[in-house]
């Protein structure tokens, strides 16, 4: 029995708006998206809106707890560390490093993955094998170990760890994107394109990409969450960001000695990391779910 329709017009919305509608219905994912956007804005504008500079030491306000405690001070909403630096400002600036740099790393990884993955997907035979397995060697080296080696070669520092993370994440995404491309290429409309006489490049740009870019966005979110965790882990091990860079993992490592005196200095960066990764995962999961539902429709 056909569904009863009150109005005779058909719903003919574009795939993108259907996606958005479904996504909005998934409340946790929507919350994730808001947090994600908030963090991105924070990462961009932190130096402008943070109350104090990251290195400003207040000698008379050492180790203040957050302002909701009795001993806290409203001037320093999240308290101060043992050198009297405002934690809120440091964490806000940390968003630029941890979150901002992770976005850049994830973007570069995705971009490179698209290039190499498409090449691998479009080529056949030995060349395909070559592109496919080119980066497999880095699949067998744990990403932390790879980061250690790159740091041993280049020296510690935030930028070098970004390279290490990109290199460590690349193989998986090359494989995923290659699989996506291959799957699209086997579809009928691509054959139609080819029969029409489209060049390889046109097939890729006009045929394949418009149909896989949403999946690429999902891949991007996955890469992003891994990148955030990796940058923070390397900062925590003091291999990545060096003080006084206020990357969240590095702040956590710096304040570890204060864990009994001032547990909030260790707890707060961790909470922020958790929220950042959680929001990214919520968005990624939501998107993936929505894509699956849309395909099922």
């Amino acid at each position, binding site marked *: 029995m056909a569904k009863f329709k009150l109005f005779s017009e058909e719903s003919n919305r574009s795939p993108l708006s259907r996606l958005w509608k479904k996504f909005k219905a998934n409340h946790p994912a929507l919350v994730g998206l808001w947090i994600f956007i908030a963090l991105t804005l924070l990462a961009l504008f932190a130096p402008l809106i943070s109350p104090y500079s990251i290195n400003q030491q207040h000698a008379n306000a050492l180790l203040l707890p957050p302002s909701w405690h009795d001993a806290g001070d409203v001037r320093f909403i999240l308290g101060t560390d043992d050198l009297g630096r405002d934690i809120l400002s440091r964490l806000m600036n940390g968003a630029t490093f941890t979150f901002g740099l992770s976005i850049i790393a994830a973007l570069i990884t995705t971009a490179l993955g698209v290039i190499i993955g498409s090449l691998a997907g479009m080529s056949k035979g030995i060349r395909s094998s070559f592109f*496919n*397995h080119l980066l*497999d*060697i880095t*699949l*067998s*080296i*744990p*990403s*932390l*170990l790879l980061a*250690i*080696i790159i*740091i*041993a*070669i280049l020296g510690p520092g935030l930028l070098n760890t970004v390279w290490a993370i990109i290199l460590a994440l690349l193989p998986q995404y090359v*494989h995923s994107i290659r699989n996506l491309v291959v799957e699209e290429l086997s579809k009928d409309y691509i054959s139609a394109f080819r029969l029409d006489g489209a060049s390889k490049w046109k097939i890729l740009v006009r045929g394949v990409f418009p149909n896989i870019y949403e999946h690429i966005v999902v891949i991007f979110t996955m890469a992003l*969450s891994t990148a955030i*965790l990796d940058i*923070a*882990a390397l900062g*925590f*091990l*003091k*291999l990545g960001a060096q003080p006084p860079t206020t990357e969240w*993992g590095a702040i*956590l490592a710096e304040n*570890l000695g204060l*864990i009994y005196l001032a*547990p909030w200095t*260790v707890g707060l960066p*961790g909470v922020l*990391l*958790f929220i950042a*990764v*959680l929001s*990214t*995962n*919520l968005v990624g*999961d939501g998107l993936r779910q929505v894509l699956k539902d849309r395909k099922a429709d």
Partner: protein
Amino acid sequence: MREYLFRRISLLLFMLLTLTAFTFSLNYLFPGDVLTNLSGQVNSSYAQSQVLADKYQLEENIIVQYGAFLGRIVDGDWGYSLSSGQPVFEHILLLFPATIELCVYALVVAIIFGIPSGVIAAVFHKRWPDRVINSLTLMGFSIPIFWLALLLIMVFCLGLGLFPMSGRIGLLYEIEPYSHFILVDIIAQGFPYGGLAFIDALKHLALPTIVLAMYPTTVLIRFTRDSMLNVLEQNYIKTARAKGLNRRQLILHHALRNALLPVIKQIGLQFSTLLTLAMITEVIFSWPGVGRWLIESIYQRDYPAIQGGLLAVSVFVIFANMFAEFSHTVLNPISRNQAHGKI
């Protein structure tokens, strides 16, 4: 099948060769004197450096040097650690079992908790068990491992005093190291100290294993759930249901086996991440394994140690991957017919 094996083994050799070539190139890429990086001897006198230059064939071209390098690797001469002066190979033999022990137990925990949870989540799709497991998994997936470790230490070690926070066993217990796997050694010695040593070792294992198992468990849950959901939509499942099989029979006899196949392959792919997380866990819990040693080595710029560790860990991951793939192929009739090794 033979063609598949042939392709797989040639891929294995290719990866090992690339790995050793990469490790060899590190001698030139790392800062410092090439001879020091190769051998681990500093400040050798002129006569000594001549002998070493001969041994490492520094005069010849790169290919010969690489050949000499491969020969040494096979012999077991992996250079000397710059910070301790001991052979790198000895360090690795001593420390690697501790890491493997931790990884294996974490993996076992992940499998025991992860796969059933994934199955339950798939079976009760869109109902409350699924939602609960999903949310917990998402949170477990998102928590930074070092923060989780710190939280657990604060609560269980310092707050409740239930578990110790570092090492493999209480230092006053003297256990003879045979296999360097602590539980095996204790059992081999017949439970000395009246079994207290065994219980102590278990207590020391508890928190690091839980911390390390968190990520693989969440990955396994999600993967098993996805795989199971995929299988449950297949036609043969609908046929079986139409035939009249009850739920339990359906899942256990038909769905599970097919759903678990890709999961086995996924476990293999997890090894690399598992080792990364193991390195961080070892540092936080002062677990005397190869991960902590590698991180110490980078602090001390001990390049021969880093190279040796890289070789050992990567070879382990490659073989673990291969093993998982072989198991997958052996168990899965479909992929046996595939000629190309595909990931």
